[in-house]
């Protein structure tokens, strides 16, 4: 095999490897992560077709809005519990750790952790999901958007 052909062969196999990685990643993404989270009603009822209902003990992500007034903080530790809701029934999230800056009542949250009862998640990670609206504080005040982090004390 002459060196030029050899070079081409290695490069093309590298490209094939790259394409395989891409395809693998996309399949990986498609199978498990196209939906990055369940909504609280999906945890209760399963996804639309009813086949994908998470089971107790499964590691899942749940995304929904923090129910106003549901945030309960343990005064001595970093333990916190709150309820998540979308359009249907609620589920409870328990978490120990530092919450993201954007965490507040009414805020969109994605919690990752183990489903310990059919409606309770023991979260190991809590991520904040924000909306696509941007405005300065003055305008937010004027249109009545609440923007203060909740007081949990």
């Amino acid at each position, binding site marked *: 095999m002459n060196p030029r052909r050899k070079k081409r062969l290695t490069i093309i196999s590298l490209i094939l490897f790259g394409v395989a990685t891409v395809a693998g990643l996309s399949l990986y993404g498609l199978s498990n992560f196209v939906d*990055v989270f369940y909504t609280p009603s999906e945890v209760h009822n399963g996804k639309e077709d009813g086949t994908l209902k998470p089971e107790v003990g499964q590691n899942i992500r749940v995304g929904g809005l923090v129910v106003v007034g549901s945030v309960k903080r343990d005064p001595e530790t970093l333990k916190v519990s709150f309820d998540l809701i979308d359009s249907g029934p609620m589920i409870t999230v328990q978490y120990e750790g530092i919450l993201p800056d*954007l965490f507040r009542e009414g805020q969109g949250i994605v919690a990752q952790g183990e489903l310990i009862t059919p409606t309770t998640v023991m979260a190991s990670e809590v991520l904040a999901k924000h909306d696509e609206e*941007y405005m*300065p504080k003055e305008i937010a005040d004027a249109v009545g958007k609440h923007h203060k982090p909740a007081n949990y004390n």
Partner: protein
Amino acid sequence: MWKWLHPYANPEVAYHFTGKLIPWFNIIAALLLVVGMFMGLAYSPADYQQGETVRIFYIHVPAAILSMGLYFSMAIAGFCALVWQLKLAHAAIAAIAPIGAAFTAIALITGAAWGKPMWGTWWIWDARLTSELILLFLYLGVIALGNAFDDKNQGAKAVSVLALVGVVNLPIIHYSVEWWNTLHQGATVTKFAAPSMAMSMYIPFVICFFGFAFLAGSLICKRFQGQVLARNSLRPWVKKMALAEEH
């Protein structure tokens, strides 16, 4: 229209035409970027929820839009290359790919730096982030495939096909936030509705966007010139130019 366009398909004419565009693009890009960056970093207000991190928007969103727009133009070039066997279209693909890859990388990096303080994580495998990462791999694939052949005109067909096929990823990126549950929020400016953004933030964004777009245009023209030279190295006008530059 074809009569009017035809002279531009001549490599020599195209070389000199893009050469004339470059200084103008540079001036416009420099002006817009200086003004836009100043407004974005210092003049525009903080967001009511996200505070100062909204300033990342002025890089992140223009880079993300350009990463997709440039891929689309590259795919069009790929189409022209396949249908009309236009050698200049091959040069255009090779010119656009590195610029598009750079803007995709910028969108991913600034997105991570924005996600960490706001979401609480640098990265999550949600549909938006994953599909944008695949866009980066598509760009890298086009670049690598183009470099795999010693004779530039040889691998041109494969490169065009890859550039064209990858275009299916663009609607996936754009609609990922609507089709699936994602951590990434929906579109702020790229939609058929008023932008969900205060004017005091929208204006710096628009200025930055056009600044980056003209910068991309100028760099693409330069790379295009290089590609035209490399692909026409046997032509007398190129030989003459090469020998004239000798010191």
